[in-house]
């Protein structure tokens, strides 16, 4: 980037957000600008900080369940999943197999819904209006399917310690199978509409390249990391629930630009569909909820549980003190670490490219602010 004397004298600050459409929530980025170039982007967080971790310390562990869905509201079921699995590990609760199958099916449906929302919103950031209409149309089907069994459309509180709240029925199985069939046909449309679009490629290729070393220094995870060619997926690397029983791939990109991150998410949706299909085929009979004590005691000592949320590794770290109330609960959220590389990544780039990078990170602000 060449900066003329005029530009050097006329550096200015620009507040991007907290109401900017492409920050997708109340995120503020203070940009030091020279002309159209970004010199130093500094994210400012905390606009919707609710101190979930303090809430966890002040109520029995069961009562924290609804909070888990209110961090990443776009993909809430993996957050449910991580929290119930954490307490199950701490209290030594066995989960019936059917319940684990239902958890995996619903979590993967939620992941597809999250990626569809991202796909539409990202293209909207880049100036294409149509894809969000297609994306929301497909996502709506998933929300309807999940609403029938969980009772909510967004902030799910469906999993319970030792199982799930209620069993799935034939209607759920049929509509999920029908949806998978439908979405596979829609992928063809997306490919024609987006993936091969020359304007889209120009806006994403070679933009915002995250090197593997940079990803390691910032602790990036999820599709943002896999775009850089590192096949780290908690479902494979640190298998939990019944994921080891399914045959699925971990798509990776090559150079870590915005286009690679896009391709990873698109290919991941197909892998999620494969997991759901296999789970539906092998769905065992049996109870969906184990008998657990009404007041769960968290024994003294710490315990960690990691799951793969739609945006990367979600870790719950719990310190118990022998009562039913967690002594300390730390929630490690993926978007927080993913975004922390922005000051380094966004130095010396054009403002439109910054919008492209932010979109490709798939940020959910309430998750970062907690």
């Amino acid at each position, binding site marked *: 980037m060449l900066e003329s004397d005029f530009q050097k004298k006329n550096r200015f600050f620009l507040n991007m957000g907290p109401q900017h459409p492409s920050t997708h929530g109340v995120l503020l980025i203070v940009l030091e600008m020279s002309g159209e170039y970004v010199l130093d982007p500094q994210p400012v*967080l*905390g606009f919707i*900080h609710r*101190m979930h*971790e*303090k809430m966890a*310390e002040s109520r029995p562990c069961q009562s924290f369940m609804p909070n888990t869905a209110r961090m990443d509201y776009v993909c809430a079921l993996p957050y449910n999943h991580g929290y119930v699995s*954490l307490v199950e*590990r701490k209290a030594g609760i066995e989960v019936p197999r059917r319940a684990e199958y239902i958890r995996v099916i619903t979590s993967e449906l939620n992941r597809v819904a999250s990626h569809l929302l991202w796909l539409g919103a990202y293209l909207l950031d880049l100036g294409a209006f149509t894809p969000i209409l297609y994306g929301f149309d497909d996502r709506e089907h998933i929300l309807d399917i999940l609403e029938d069994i969980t009772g909510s459309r967004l902030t799910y509180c469906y999993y319970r310690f030792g199982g799930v709240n209620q069993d799935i029925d034939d209607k759920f199985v049929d509509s999920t199978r029908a949806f998978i069939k439908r979405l596979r046909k829609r992928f063809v449309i997306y490919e024609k509409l987006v993936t091969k679009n020359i304007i889209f490629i120009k806006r994403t290729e070679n933009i915002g390249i995250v090197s593997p070393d940079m*990803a*390691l*220094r*910032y*602790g*990036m995870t999820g599709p943002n*990391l896999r775009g850089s060619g*590192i096949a*780290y997926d908690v479902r*494979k*690397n*640190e*298998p939990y629930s019944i994921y*080891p029983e399914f045959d699925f791939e971990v798509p990776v990109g090559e150079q870590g630009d915005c286009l690679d991150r896009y391709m990873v998410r698109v290919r991941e949706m197909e892998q999620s569909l494969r997991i759901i299909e296999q789970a539906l085929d092998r769905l065992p009979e049996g109870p969906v909820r184990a008998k657990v004590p009404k007041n769960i005691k968290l024994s*003294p*000592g*710490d*315990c*960690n*549980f*990691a799951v793969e949320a739609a945006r990367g*590794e979600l*870790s719950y*770290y719990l*310190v*118990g*003190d*022998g009562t039913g109330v967690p*002594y*300390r609960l*730390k929630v*490690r959220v993926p978007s*927080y*670490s993913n975004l*922390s*590389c922005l000051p*380094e990544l966004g130095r010396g780039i054009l403002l439109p490219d910054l919008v492209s990078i932010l979109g490709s990170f798939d940020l959910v602000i309430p998750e970062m*602010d*907690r």
Partner: protein
Amino acid sequence: MAQETTNFKQDILFHEFNATETDYNQRGYHLEVALEVNQVRKFAQKAYDQGFFLVFVTGFHVLPEETEEGTTSGLNGVYQFARFDRLYRIKGQVSVPEDMSLPSICDIYQGADWHERETRDLYGINFEGHPNLKPLLLSDEDTDFHPLLKEEKKLKSLEKVSWPPEALESVDADTDAKASSTDSIDS
């Protein structure tokens, strides 16, 4: 494969530090490292050299203890590292001295920058050497308000919120079983 895993474990056992292998199925991490304040940076550097990524930095608040060097602040810094290429998680824990400061590791792991700012917000731990230790999650006016500090009557001693010592000793017995479970993941 089992051989490789064993060697790997020996390599990263962090011999300079007070490290204990733990039962992964019980705790969700493999190695617990008890750190002194002056070891924190060395520990982070070693983790970086060996290819670990930073999962999080946080803290927790217990009852202050009388030690030979004086009273502790009661705060503990917790560091967690993991790997991209295989299943191995490390937890480092350090007791924060009375002056409430820990060395910053954000020049080794740039990702620690925000985690340390957040920990300062919530606990008031001062990270020495951090270039920009201003509030991140809390507002700029709240520099003296640390929500995760507990009231005195709710504080428990570190012993009461740690795994009982016998749980540590029983770990050696099932190390083999753990090694084989690690193998199945790599394949």
